[in-house]
């Protein structure tokens, strides 16, 4: 019988530990347990047999660490042979036990052991490929399901799930490891992990390893609260403890089974064991729990989006979506996109996060831009350092798919409309990758002028989504804000539709608020009033500028008034101690050059604004105040009278001033002194030194092409081959990565003899730098600036 028909309909039992038992039989520390599929097949088969006889229904193949990283091609053991033998042994044990009809073989996939990019070195698609190889082999050998287990990184779990879904039709179960803080090692919570995995369409999910059954109770309660899927728990035999240098587990079979029985009251659908559990544990477990009352999983219908570490639920307290990562109507932002200035986008993200946004909208659409590539790059950069879930905002389905695939969580998607073409493009993506999608109430006939018309389209979107298997709670309906100055009843129609969508369509709602005031003076007055009216109608989320004091004030006030802010705690936290509105644009604290010398970032920006307002020429400010102040700091640093943090604070203050100058020059690029290509070399991921050099070079007027970290020689050579580039700066922190620095220099010297190379990094010395062919060794960032000034002399 297909196991799909059993999942969630009756209680099933997994087997218990493998590694700990093999160690007891002589497996050495550091030895790969999967090799025993070939070296000692009889022992593996006997272990499976023992678990079947103990009452297990699902056997996990001994393939936890079987992947091409641990079993590379040409190695002692062929990966295919290890995996095939793993499945065969489980099948043989099942046949021997006469359990073909009621026992199933789970192809067991563990973590790769590598960290994924951008924090690590393994590319997401390479991770997918590693798992895909094992899935194809295991499915062909006759596995009945895929178990992805002991995952401590949701992103890696996503890669494994995609590999399974794309390479076989078997059911997929995922269990992750939570620490005592209730989080995955990479930061995920139960809620964020459940959102991710449900979005990806797994068949069951849960928790394994890490702790014993008793410690798992809070995790199990969380799982029950968030998951609509069958829940799995496979605990260790207690918390691991070291005794005489060895890891031991203390919870015996009866105690294990007794705690599991207690946990089963929380609606658990599959149970088994992990490290330290034995056939005796599973025998006690099945004896105690097999005939306990069984309650099938209950649909939770919660609208949740997630990031790597955070879940945001829509439909309880109103959710704020930051709108600022969007080029529409913003010259400076468009310039950043054209210049491929990801840092600018990140800073827009940080500012909105700090202002209190819950989700960030990401739109990088410009006619002349490769949107699929740039949206994916922006999403990867943002999700690496910002814990807020993202809303992928694009009308290009190709861009949406690429970004969704790489997204580390369950994204929000902006948007689908009631047009048949739009739904046919977007819904298959939502079904495959998961997501909460914004449904715009417009279709081939345009935007209906009445609330009836908009509600009707909302229903059409909901019903079409259902045909794809997408539930109503994964839709958020936008009844569309039109401009009140051109159509007097615009706001009223929107508000009426807004109020009807919840009860009549059964979906949460969303509005981009600020459209309503287009063409009117003092737009914030209208926006805040409209926002408050919409909140009162039950608006679930708003796309707005979280740095608008008025909008945030309306939101905080609404929450306090609507009983959503207990004892007005959040309101007080935001405004407590203020008697009057904060004074607007304070006077600069000090003159510009002094701000730079003292490292005052805000002050430097304000002083620049003030000077420009008084009519100072932007470039004159740079030459007369900024550069001399920077020079003074640089000299102090080189003389040892001033330390690195001060140098950097001054550099940042100068940078803040330059940013004001840049904005004032309305998108024109400041004339640059020359282009410097910077990179941390292949294999190395330390980039603080490189980032410091970048800021200083920029301050001194150089255009910096920052290629990032772990950059291959060919990529650096390609960037250096662009017209006008005469200097490349390379950074490496380790003796093992200086090798790649040497390779890169050799390639540059061969292909681009006109280009100079300056190098820096902890293990380098002037002598070492010379030996690997660099033109200059820079002991610090100021030394790099000086060399750059030599390479590009002032004209």
């Amino acid at each position, binding site marked *: 019988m297909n196991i799909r028909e059993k999942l969630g309909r009756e209680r099933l039992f997994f087997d218990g530990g493998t590694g700990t038992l093999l160690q007891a039989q002589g497996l050495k520390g550091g030895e790969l347990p999967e090799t025993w599929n070939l070296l000692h097949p009889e022992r593996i088969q006997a272990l499976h047999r023992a678990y079947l006889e103990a009452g297990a229904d699902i056997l996990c193949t001994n393939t936890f660490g079987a992947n091409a990283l641990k079993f590379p091609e040409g190695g002692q053991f062929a990966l295919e042979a290890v995996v095939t033998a793993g499945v065969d042994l489980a099948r043989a044990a099942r046949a021997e036990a006469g359990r073909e009809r009621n026992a199933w073989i789970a192809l067991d996939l563990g973590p790769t052991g590598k960290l994924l990019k951008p924090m*690590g070195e393994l590319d997401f698609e390479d991770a997918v490929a590693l798992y895909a190889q094992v899935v194809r082999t295991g499915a062909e050998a006759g596995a009945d399901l895929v178990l992805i287990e002991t995952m401590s990184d949701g992103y890696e779990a996503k890669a494994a799930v995609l590999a399974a879904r794309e390479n076989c039709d078997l059911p997929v179960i995922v269990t992750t490891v939570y620490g005592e803080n209730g989080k995955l090692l990479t930061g995920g919570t139960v809620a964020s992990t459940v959102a991710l995995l449900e979005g990806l369409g797994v068949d069951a999910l849960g928790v394994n390893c890490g702790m014993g059954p008793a410690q798992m109770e809070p995790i199990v309660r969380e799982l029950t609260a968030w998951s609509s899927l069958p829940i799995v728990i496979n605990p260790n035999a207690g918390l691991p403890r070291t005794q005489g240098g060895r890891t031991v587990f203390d919870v015996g079979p009866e105690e294990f089974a007794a705690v599991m029985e207690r946990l089963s009251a929380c609606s658990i659908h599959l149970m088994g064991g992990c490290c330290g559990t034995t056939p005796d544990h599973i025998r006690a477990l099945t004896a105690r729990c097999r005939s306990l009352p069984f309650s099938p999983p209950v649909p939770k219908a919660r609208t949740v989006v997630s990031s790597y570490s955070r879940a945001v639920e829509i439909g309880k307290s109103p959710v704020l979506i930051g709108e600022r990562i969007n080029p529409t109507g913003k010259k400076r932002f468009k310039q950043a996109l054209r210049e491929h200035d990801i840092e600018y986008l990140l800073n827009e993200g940080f500012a909105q996060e700090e202002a209190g946004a819950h989700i960030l909208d990401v739109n990088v659409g410009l006619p002349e831009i490769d949107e699929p590539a740039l949206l994916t790059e922006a999403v990867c950069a943002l999700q690496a350092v910002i814990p807020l879930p993202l809303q992928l905002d694009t009308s290009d389905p190709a861009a949406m798919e690429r970004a969704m695939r790489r997204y580390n969580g369950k994204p929000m998607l902006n948007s689908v409309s009631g047009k048949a073409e739009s739904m046919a493009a977007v819904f298959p993506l939502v079904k495959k990758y998961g997501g909460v999608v914004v449904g715009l109430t417009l279709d081939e006939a345009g935007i209906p002028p009445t609330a009836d018309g908009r509600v009707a389209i909302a229903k059409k979107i909901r019903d079409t989504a259902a045909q794809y298997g997408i539930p109503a709670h994964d839709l958020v309906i936008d009844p569309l804000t039109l401009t009140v100055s051109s159509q007097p009843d615009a706001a009223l129609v929107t508000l009426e539709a807004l109020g009807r969508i919840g009860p009549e369509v059964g979906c949460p709602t969303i509005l981009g608020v600020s459209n309503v005031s287009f063409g009117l003076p003092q737009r914030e007055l209208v926006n805040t009033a409209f926002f408050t009216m919409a909140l009162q109608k039950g608006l679930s989320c708003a796309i707005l500028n979280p740095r608008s004091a008025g909008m945030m004030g309306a939101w905080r006030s609404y929450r306090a008034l609507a009983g959503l802010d207990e004892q007005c705690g959040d309101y007080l936290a935001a405004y407590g101690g203020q008697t009057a509105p904060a004074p607007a644009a304070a006077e600069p604290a000090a003159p510009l050059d002094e701000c730079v010398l003292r490292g005052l970032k805000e002050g430097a920006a304000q002083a620049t604004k003030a000077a420009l307002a008084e009519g100072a020429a932007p470039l004159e400010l740079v030459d007369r105040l900024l550069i001399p102040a920077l020079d003074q700091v640089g000299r102090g640093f080189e003389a040892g009278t001033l330390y690195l943090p001060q140098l950097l604070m001054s550099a940042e203050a100068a940078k803040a001033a330059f940013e004001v100058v840049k904005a004032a020059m309305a998108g024109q690029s400041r004339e640059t002194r020359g282009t410097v290509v910077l990179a941390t070399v292949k294999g190395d991921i330390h980039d603080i030194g490189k980032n410091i050099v970048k800021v200083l070079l920029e301050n001194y007027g150089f255009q910096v092409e920052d290629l990032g970290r772990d950059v291959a020689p060919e990529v650096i050579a390609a960037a250096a081959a662009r017209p006008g580039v005469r200097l490349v700066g390379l950074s490496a922190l380790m003796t093992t990565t200086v090798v790649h620095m040497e390779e890169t220099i050799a390639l540059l010297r061969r292909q681009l003899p006109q280009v100079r190379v300056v190098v820096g990094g902890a293990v380098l010395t002037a002598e070492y730098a010379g030996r690997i062919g660099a033109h200059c060794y820079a002991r610090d960032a100021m030394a790099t600036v000086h060399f750059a000034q030599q390479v590009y002399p002032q004209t």
Partner: protein
Amino acid sequence: MTAAAPYEEVCRYLGYKRGVQPDPETERLIRACTARVEEAAEPKVVSTVLPLACSGEDGLKLGPIGVKSAALAKNLRGCGQVILFAATLGLEVDRLIARSGAGRVAEGAVYQAAGAALIEAVCDAANDALRRESEAEGWYLRPRFSPGYGDFSITHQPDITRLLRTPERIGLTVTDSMLLLPVKSVTAVMGRARQAVPCHRQGCEACGKTDCPFRRESA
């Protein structure tokens, strides 16, 4: 497990010479960023005890791991066992450092220094605990010795992490270039001997690189 990064150590990693106090503006930055690192860190350690066999001047067997290193052999002279040890501050510290990459370089430098000071403090605390446990079992513990010290090659990182199963247990991985990730992580070997050997040199002072700009100056 909670731990604190000593302020003086953070300053030392930032290049401040002994006795030099950062100005108040900088001190505020250092204290604020150090607090953020302490908040982001999820220190985790694992260890195991292995038999030790020595052959010749530099041949060693740490359980199944074969090592050739005269410096480590000297460090382990007279020992019958070794503790294999690994510690990490976790990935959130890496994210904090990465976050500062978008132009907040002053913060980045302090996160870096605070992370270095904190992982040392975590290792010291964990090693003290191991020392007490060892002494209770009648063993004296030697100071920790990490791959990369002297001629103890960093190519042994994967041997250590595989044996300790650090990816699954504490999220500590090794790249193809032998970098530990998360970045603020340490692996080390500590000898266990039946005889106490007076040993005053450890950590920074034990290192042969006497021209290191960050070398701790003795009081």
